[in-house]
């Protein structure tokens, strides 16, 4: 009994949703339009995704050694030996 009811409902749904296309339908229907839009967006995003991530390189000037054993520094070492 239940199976019969469900089949009847299914048939009704099928009839409603799959209407035959009307003669005057537009050249690009809604689904095709969104499909084309999605493909276009994917193509546009592709170059951004393949660009390699670049870590920041501070450069030689920034990372050069600034420490030097000046007289001031030598004095510091000397008095710390007391």
């Amino acid at each position, binding site marked *: 009994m239940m199976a019969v009811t469900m089949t009847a409902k299914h048939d009704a749904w099928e009839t409603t949703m799959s209407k035959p296309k009307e003669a005057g339908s537009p050249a690009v229907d809604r689904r095709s339009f969104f499909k084309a839009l999605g493909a276009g967006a994917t193509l546009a995003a592709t170059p951004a995704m393949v660009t390699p991530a670049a870590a*920041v390189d501070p450069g030689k000037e920034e*990372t050069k050694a600034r420490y030097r054993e000046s007289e001031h520094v030598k004095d510091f070492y000397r008095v710390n030996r007391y």
Partner: protein
Amino acid sequence: MARMKFLCDADRCIECNACVTACKNENEVPWGINRRRVVTINDGKPSERSISMACMHCTDAPCAAVCPVDCFYTTADAVVLHSKDLCIGCGYCFYACPFGAPQYPKVGNFGSRGKMDKCTFCAGGPEVDLSPVEFQKYGSNRLAEGKLPLCAEMCSTKSLLAGDGAIIAQIYKERVVKRGYGSGAWGWQTAYKETVAI
């Protein structure tokens, strides 16, 4: 190549906080931030010990490992610095650092954080050496002037050592060999002679 290191001789530290004050004054550190602080354990008990802590300029710095914008870099003399232009104030470095070195200025309500600030070993930042911009962002650049961090130079008991890791390690070894026992504080023998048994 010399590698810059801090070494705090805990037997000599008297918790005077001169290093903290010197750092704040020299670098004009913003209100609410301490690049250096003194930690004391067993306060008031016979085994009390104090140690002055700041960024330890790790060889494989965990702050740099977790930074999502790669704003950290290590100089040729092993000082870990960062760019405030790149920092986004996310706070990851604060959680990663075992010494609690990274600090953040409070820039607004609702806990919003500004650019991270930390000890630079008095070596400035990525800006042009000794420029006003560098001073405003990172504080003084004493290394470029042929000097060492002021916290260490200011230490009254010569507890805090800074400079070439090999040299300051040698100085510390000499101290340990010489004092052998008890306090190695300056003037201990002058004050108490050699008769004091510890």
